[in-house]
């Protein structure tokens, strides 16, 4: 296998990891704020905080990993995306800062500030929207090469149905993923009220997620026919994804096997995410940049891959330990520790 492909696979996998863990984090923040609003805060906040506080930093590192790895394996992306995305990504930085500081300030904050909690919840919806712009832009048609370098065409971006459907999908998916995970998490801890509430949220957001996902495929047909064609070649992956979706919704509906339901959900998103990624190959940015002209030199690629394997040997056991303490430990989840 080419090292370009190895690099892309690794990065795509970590991005997928970020999509899942960050969705849980973003959505939980939103539900937290929403429950303040509806007066159900007592029911939810404890469950949410138990999970979120210890792991948010790790979630953040997934993003850094993707970003730094991208520049390492494909330095030209720094030039194209770095030049064009100054504003959207700066907004994302500020939103990320609001989230991060919420954890910092509320850990020992006495009562918790309501306005702050709402702000924090709102970032949970705006961040996926602002980060998802990168996906939209990668489809091509939004960046122009000028003598000042690559420039983003904001007007086209804001008037494109594709970009709005991606935003809607990002938000719906965040809420759906988060609700399913928290249903399971609350159930393990024996918080029956919270479980019931999260289950309802999960069922509410299931349909919008799948509908907008299909909407995007439709939009792509107009926007980027090449990409659409290669998506169709991978129809079977989307079919599997759909099956997983139906199965996990069914389990949640039946109020059983929430853990399996969550795993099925991960499978659902994995198949869709990788199918999307594979269909895009070899483009990093339509039509300017492919993985081949954007890639780093061989010496660096090998060094990065070696570092990655060594890093994984360190990372996987540590991540397992983290899960053992905060997710797989029933006593902790139940709030007894």
């Amino acid at each position: 296998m080419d090292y370009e492909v190895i690099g892309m696979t690794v990065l795509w996998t970590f991005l997928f990891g970020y999509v899942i863990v960050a969705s849980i984090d973003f959505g939980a923040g939103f539900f937290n704020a929403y429950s303040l609003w509806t007066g159900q805060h007592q029911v939810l906040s404890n469950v949410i905080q138990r999970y979120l506080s210890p792991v948010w930093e790790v979630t953040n590192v997934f993003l850094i990993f993707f970003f730094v790895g991208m520049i390492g394996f494909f330095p030209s992306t720094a030039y194209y995306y770095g030049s064009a995305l100054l504003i959207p990504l700066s907004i994302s930085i500020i939103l990320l800062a609001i989230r991060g500081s919420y954890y910092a300030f509320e850990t020992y904050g006495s009562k918790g500030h309501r306005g702050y909690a709402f702000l924090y919840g709102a970032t949970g919806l705006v961040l996926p929207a602002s980060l998802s712009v990168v996906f939209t832009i990668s489809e091509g048609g939004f960046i122009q090469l000028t003598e000042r370098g690559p420039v983003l065409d904001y007007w086209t971006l804001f008037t494109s149905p594709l970009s709005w459907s991606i935003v809607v999908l990002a938000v719906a998916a965040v809420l759906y993923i988060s609700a399913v995970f928290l249903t399971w998490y609350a159930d393990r801890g024996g918080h029956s009220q919270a479980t019931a509430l999260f289950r309802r949220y999960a069922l509410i957001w299931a349909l919008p997620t799948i509908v907008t996902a299909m909407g995007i495929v439709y939009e792509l047909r107009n926007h980027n026919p090449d990409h659409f064609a290669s998506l169709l070649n991978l129809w079977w992956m989307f079919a599997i994804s759909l099956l997983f979706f139906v199965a996990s919704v069914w389990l949640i509906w039946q109020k059983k096997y929430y853990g399996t339901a969550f795993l099925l959900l991960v499978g659902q998103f994995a198949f869709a995410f990788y199918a999307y990624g594979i269909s895009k190959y070899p483009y990093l940015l339509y039509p300017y940049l492919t993985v081949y002209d954007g890639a780093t030199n061989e010496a660096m690629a090998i060094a990065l891959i070696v570092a990655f394997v060594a890093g994984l040997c360190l990372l996987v056991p540590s991540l397992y330990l983290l899960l053992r303490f905060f997710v797989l430990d029933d006593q902790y989840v139940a709030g007894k520790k």
Partner: protein
Amino acid sequence: MLFEDPVFASRMLSLLTLSIHAIFATLGVGLPLMIIIAHWLGIKKNDEHYLLMARRWARGFVVLVAVGVVTGTAIALQLALLWPNFMEMAGHVIALPLFMEVFAFFFEAIFLGIYLYTWNRFDDQRKHLLLLIPVAIGATMSAFFITTVNGFMNAPTGFQIIGGQMTGVSPIEAMFNPATPTKAAHVISTAFMTSAFVLAALAAYRLLKGAQHVYYKKALHLMMVVGLIFAIATAVIGDFAGKYLAKHQPEKLAAAEWHFETMEGAPLVLFGILDDEQNVRFGLEIPYALSILAHNHPQAEVIGLNEFPQEWHPPLFIHYLFDLMVIIGVWLVLFSFVYWWGMRRKWTIVTSRWFRRLIVASGPLAMLAIQAGWWMTEFGRQPWILRGVMTVEEAATQSPYVGHLFFFFLALYLILVIGVVVVLRNINQRFPLEQDLAHEGGERPWITK
């Protein structure tokens, strides 16, 4: 200026974000070690005051780390947003340590999460202490890796440019460039030193405010001694850093010293004012000191700034920054030595109020030296972003909006810093020492075993 010139605006935004990050990153590197030391002493001496120190410091540490992560995320993204051409080029050669840094972050973040939320989940406190070791290693390694990147910007190695094309890349050579050894060692030892003095300053402040408890005296003493050790290390390594500069970046050393003509037996000038003819007035001159700093020999020849073309001259105000750093460094060594010696000799002056006031000042002073040192070395690299290869001008984004963003980020950091101050004060009020002591007291089977 800020709104018209994207290059200048990018420089100022980098300056802003990095300076803020430096505050939190320094403490993020240093505090885990201090907590480990206290925790370990507590177990070893069977003294719950030290254990309490570890616990109380850890509370503040959580808040500081979180802001360190936030500002670090900002700077990591900004590097590509503000300097796209630089990152594209540097990505080919120096991406390895950047990538490894991320693993160090993972490592730190994971074990920090576990450490902080498992205070009561271990019967044996020593196991809990073990969790902090990966945190300290992760933080120190991330400082090491990022400093190698900065070293590369100062002394680019590990590649060749033939006909505008980069070839023969060696990531390892780039990472272990000539600047790496002194730079990394200096950065890490200053982080330890600064954290120690900051904690000592806090304890001294409490004592000045009338607190009587022996807890504060123990904390003060411990941190002053640790501070002394790392202050000596810092000065020694700083001396090596000067020798590195003399060999590999003579223009930076010359600008920092206002040393214009190449000569033997060069004096070191402190402060002063420069006139138009490159004469220093009102400066404090130490004969031969520059030759010693640069080459360890009083008669050695030191290259002057006039050997270099005018457009390569770094800004000359870095002289003041350099002086500030060195003076603070020397002061902290002497001062903490006097404290240590005085405590051994039971001198009463070292426990007097005015001496305690000086201890309170040493925390902020150390932090100031960190800032001065970074500004000196970063401005001293001008006009290059990659010395000899790419200028700042060539590297910057062309986007016209950077100036506006500067103010958004300024507001963000202001809020963050104010928030940190408020929250740290709140923590202190919510967990007064007396209450912690009462709470922690009683039977503690794990202290003895």
